[in-house]
């Protein structure tokens, strides 16, 4: 594929607000996970919660969109000079020529969960202040982001569970290649809610400790929340040495099971292979892999087979979910941005909380931070329904 410039990005999650805060946390090996004290949830698990959202309100002219997910979206848009950069792009291309492609898994479902507690005791009706289209509907996120940024080009939400906000890069790249838009706001937001906390718990997939990707005793995920956004534009013929580029996207389906990955990592391998092919790169060209690495028994075993099968034991790999938790529909964009920070900072982030790497897993899993020259990175995102997406990102020059 034609490489695209990632000219700006912004990020917020339990590690911090903004790229600088996230970078410091990664360097200091500080985790954003804490014992779950969210809402009225009573579960023995750890979560990555973003501080301050209960007091936060979305911009007053978009008040009907107010919900935890859109608050988190606005928080992200206001960081790292992102909204300003989009404003400049709007001047350059025109509002109608910038697409908005967002990933989310649960959108503003917390709003519906809370509204169900306030149903009319007689009629069962939802409260009058419940706004379905602006909060619950899966499209709500892209609708809100588009209005917040004053854009009017093509927009939709991709909701393919935990691959959602990786796949938006592919959608945007194709829309730009087809000439439907000249630039694209891509990203993803997922926020804490009872559905995912009790849902993953019902599947026995939440850990009672901070999640330990690749550990021999790993026992599940830590759910987190966060937002990330990137601005995609056409890349110049000679991108600057510090330019960030989207080089390749690979997408596949497992065709195996709704909530368990293919045991041999078949779909994962297809997605990684496709992303490399799209980038015109060989496995040896990749300096670091940010794994999906959820810390479930099944994911890490399956992903390792795919990664080891394609890259062998040389390429450094790690999962940053020990730091952020699993951001579900926002995991793809979050880890793509962490991959770009790795390039920019020359930092290979070591995975957190992992004590003893599972001897059955054969990839080169990093337990400590390493300084290194990082030019090309692969980031994996795999979701329920066997939806797989791999991204290759790189520096210019």
């Amino acid at each position, binding site marked *: 594929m034609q490489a695209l410039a990632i000219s700006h990005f912004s990020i917020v999650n339990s590690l911090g607000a903004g790229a600088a805060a996230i970078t410091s946390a990664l360097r200091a090996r500080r985790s954003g996970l804490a014992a779950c004290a969210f809402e009225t949830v009573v579960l023995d698990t750890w979560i990555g919660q973003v501080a301050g959202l209960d007091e936060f309100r979305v911009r007053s002219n978009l008040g009907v969109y107010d919900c935890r997910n859109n608050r988190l979206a606005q928080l992200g848009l206001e960081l790292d000079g992102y909204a300003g950069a989009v404003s400049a792009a709007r001047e350059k291309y025109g509002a*109608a020529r910038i697409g908005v492609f967002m990933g989310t898994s649960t959108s503003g479902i917390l709003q519906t969960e809370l509204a169900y507690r306030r149903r009319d005791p007689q009629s069962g009706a939802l409260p009058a202040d419940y706004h379905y*289209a602006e909060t619950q509907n899966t499209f709500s996120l892209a609708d809100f982001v588009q209005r917040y940024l004053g854009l009017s080009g093509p927009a*939709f939400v*991709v909701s393919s569970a935990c691959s959602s906000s990786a796949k938006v890069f592919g959608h945007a790249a194709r829309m730009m290649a087809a000439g439907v838009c000249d630039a694209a706001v891509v990203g993803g937001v997922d926020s804490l809610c009872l559905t995912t906390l*009790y849902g993953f718990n019902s599947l026995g997939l939440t850990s009672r400790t901070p999640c330990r990707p690749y550990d021999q005793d790993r026992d599940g995920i830590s759910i987190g929340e966060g937002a990330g956004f990137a601005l995609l534009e056409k890349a110049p013929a000679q991108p600057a040495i510090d330019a960030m580029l989207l080089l390749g996207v690979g*997408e596949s*389906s497992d065709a195996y099971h*709704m909530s368990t990955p293919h045991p041999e990592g078949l779909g994962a391998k297809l997605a990684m292979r496709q992303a490399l092919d799209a980038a015109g790169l060989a496995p040896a060209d990749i300096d670091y892999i940010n794994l999906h690495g959820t810390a479930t028994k099944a994911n890490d075993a399956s992903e390792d087979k795919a990664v080891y099968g394609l890259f062998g034991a040389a390429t450094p790999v790690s999962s940053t979910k020990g730091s952020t938790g699993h951001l579900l529909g926002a995991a793809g964009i979050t880890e793509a941005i962490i991959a770009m920070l790795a390039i920019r900072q020359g930092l290979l982030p070591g995975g957190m909380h992992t004590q003893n790497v599972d001897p059955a897993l054969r990839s080169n899993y990093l337990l400590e931070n390493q300084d290194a020259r990082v030019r090309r990175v692969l980031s994996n995102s795999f979701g329920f329904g066997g939806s797989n997406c791999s991204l290759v990102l790189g520096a210019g020059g």
Partner: protein
Amino acid sequence: MRIFVEGVGLLGPGLNGWQASLPLLAGDAAYSPTPTVVTASDLLPAAERRRIGLSVKLALAAGCEAFVHAGRDAAITATVFTSSSGDGENLHHICATLASPEREISPTRFHNSVHNAPAGYWSIATRSHASSTSLCCHDASFAAGLLDAAVQVAVNCKPVALIAYDQPYPEPLHTVRPLSASFGMALVMAPQATRHVFATLDISFLPGAASATRMTHSGLDAVRAAVPAARCLPLLAALARGATAVVVLAYGDQNHLRVAVTPC
């Protein structure tokens, strides 16, 4: 963008399959809005078949009909799924349970709650490892899916199946989001003419609001207006008539799609 239509699937109130619906879509038969008849696909293994909800059945049935019509192998064809609301029945049960003291939601309900559940079951049913996406654009979900599928066909030069579906919410959500009927449709599109192609679509994404093309029959137009996935009906009617036509689809309040249909 020009794409080539190879196959159609359709399931809705009084619309029992594409072939069976051709006369009434072409305006040659009377329409009666009988409830949508949905049968569980026998493509899925029995264990999976027991777990699926109505939206998955709708998507699978429409998809299967379109692939048979197209004579194409679903196992190697990319898919674009689109729905405004997904499985509203399942959402209702989860929210009702979470509002109760117990809060024990079933693992099956949880994994079926993802918007891409039909895509997941489809890939299992068809043994497809091809790329698949699942979109939502509220009332414009069909238009967004059509645009994305056409872009994929044009950019990747490979066939793509678009599968759009919606099912009504139970109360109390039905009051705040009334969807009148269950509806599923599928279009198998190719990048060039094949022996199964029977029409071309020239699709343009255009700025500005525009009046959407309506159905001549008021009963069918009511379905179109009340179910986001059924916004496809004017396009299917044009395909059924087999004559040159231009169909306008609203895409939110700021854009629209212009689709020029040419039979071949």
